[in-house]
């Protein structure tokens, strides 16, 4: 594992970037700049950052509707992401997808899928194509623990294992499927145990520790790429904010939220770096300033964006033919 100072600071910066970007999203939502559903990743940043750090640029990612962090960590620019949330033409999906449907062909970012477990078969198919074409790419799919109650989870794991496909299944277990606690909805809460029933290598990881996440992801990706078949990682994590913006959080205790916030992955890594004297106050201030500037620029980009013409409403219902 790479423990260079520079590398650890990169991980920290990637998490801070997601955190600040989303804090601004929440603010812009309440100011009615962003509408629709807005699901924030705050608290779970270590998972996306740690996993993406283990990938090659040509590996594919399929994510959920809580995917701003995944998109940012996969390399999608902040400006188009923000513009997408504004509904602007310059957004990642021309303003057609919004917060839940970020797409980027260049970075092999296949959404932004808002159907729980809907992305799992898709990742299996992407991996099937790579397998049949003899390409050594990995397809990574993120999903919440709620998806493990869906049939598509089981079908996808079975298919991937049966056909020995290069898929990395990343379960972000934040303990609540919207407002339904894991133990209230699933009989076996040892998630890795369930995945391993399909003959898949599976284990649980502390999702609040970016270094642990990265270490596990590197190991799993290496196994997948080497032809070891699909792997499953359960990242134990927590969302600090409500499910979406309009959620009074009747289903969990404030004390529980407070306890998890004590394990916030960003201060955790920062303290680790400080303890080793690898980072100074000035470094942190500089990092925050750079991130703030990037977020400001993203907002400015979105504000300056344009609206897609209503005349284009039916464009891309089908592919555009080359003109005759």
């Amino acid at each position, binding site marked *: 594992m790479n423990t260079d100072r520079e590398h650890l600071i990169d991980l920290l910066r990637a998490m801070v970037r997601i955190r600040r970007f989303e804090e601004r999203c929440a603010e812009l939502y309440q100011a009615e700049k962003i509408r629709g559903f807005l699901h924030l990743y705050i608290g779970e940043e270590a998972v996306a950052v740690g996993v993406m750090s283990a990938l090659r640029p040509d590996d594919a990612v399929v994510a959920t509707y809580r995917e701003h962090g995944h998109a940012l960590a996969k390399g999608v620019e902040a400006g188009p992401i923000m513009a997408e949330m504004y509904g602007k033409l310059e957004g990642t999906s021309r303003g057609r997808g919004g917060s839940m449907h970020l797409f980027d062909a260049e970075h092999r970012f296949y959404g932004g899928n808002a159907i729980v477990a809907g992305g799992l078969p898709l990742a299996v198919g992407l991996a*099937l194509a790579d397998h049949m074409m003899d390409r050594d790419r990995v397809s990574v799919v993120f999903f919440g623990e709620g998806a493990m109650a869906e049939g598509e989870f089981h079908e996808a794991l079975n298919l991937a294992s049966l056909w020995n496909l290069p898929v990395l299944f990343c379960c972000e277990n934040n303990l609540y499927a919207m407002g339904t606690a894991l133990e209230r909805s699933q009989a076996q809460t040892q998630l890795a145990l369930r995945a391993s029933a399909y003959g898949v290598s599976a284990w649980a990881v502390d999702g609040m520790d970016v270094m642990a996440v990265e270490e596990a992801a590197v190991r799993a990706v290496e196994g997948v790429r080497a032809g070891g078949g699909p792997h499953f990682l359960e990242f134990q994590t927590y969302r600090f904010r409500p499910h979406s913006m309009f959620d009074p959080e009747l289903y969990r205790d404030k004390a529980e939220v407070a306890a998890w916030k004590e394990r916030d992955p960003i201060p955790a890594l920062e303290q680790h770096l400080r303890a080793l004297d690898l980072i100074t106050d000035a470094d942190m201030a500089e990092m925050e300033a750079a991130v703030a500037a990037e977020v400001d620029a993203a907002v400015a980009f979105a504000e300056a964006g344009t609206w897609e013409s209503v005349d284009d409403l039916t464009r891309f219902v089908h592919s555009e033919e080359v003109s005759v």
Partner: protein
Amino acid sequence: MTTTTDVRTLTYREAVREAIRHAMQTDERVFLMGEDIGMYGGCYAVSKGLLDEFGPERIRDTPLSEAGFVGAGIGAALGGMRPIVELMTINFSLLALDQIVNTAALYLHMSGGQFNVPVVIRMPTGAGRQVAAQHSHSFESWYANVPGLKVASPATIEDARWMLWTALEDPDPVVIFEHVGLYAMSGELGNDAGPTPLDGAAVRRSGSDVTIVTYGGNVPKALSAADSLADDGISAEVLDLRMLRPLDTGSILYSVSRTHRLVVVDEAWKSVSVAAEVIASVAEHALWELDAPPARVCTVEAPIPYAQHMEEAALPQPAGIVRAVKSVLGR
């Protein structure tokens, strides 16, 4: 007239098989995936023999996981392949509806034009073989309702042989419905036949008194009804829709504007059916051409029973089509 050397006779089933084989020989990105399509040879024997020819990687038997393998087909299409996904029947396609609608149909538009999904999904549809309620559905209209899909309904040997080719060339998802009553039908195919388009209806019999609009497994029934009507001096035009999405409204309007009378035959339940859409289009665009209220011959609104006489009574039949036409003509 063509001479015997220009045509050969084959069944609908053989035509579909030949289409799959041809596509797989021509394009290495094409593969077939579905339940019991390999070792078993296909529930309707369409893919019989293909496993030996192409091997298990490209004739890929799947577990009973409709959502899983349809989704995987969509993913493989996104990953550069040209999958033909076979669902054992339309009845089981409901388990894959989420993937077909929420993924295949939406991805191109929702991604702002970035991700097209060149997948072809084939499935048998329809009733008439005494397999009872859960194996006798005709839900083509469900799929035809969804922008982003193209919905094909080959009813002739030529379309069975050549529509798949056009569908695989299409950059977007195409759903092909093969009526179970057609597989054993045999007919002539011109050796000069080639790819048939994924738009446009076709006049299968021309006539001047009434237009019978239909598709899929009911095309032969409508043609048979038209034969009997001719004996009574009634000249019926039979229009085969071929595609349920996009619907060729222009051809429907053109035919109705000549015959001024319309009967639609559809094996789905009448309410909210393709038949309803056809009549709504005529009401919108050609009301003043109608010289009598249009009629629909559809399946009786009840689950389809097993007993043969009950099943026959439930489904559109040539006699019922004849009665509907005569009623529209005031006879």
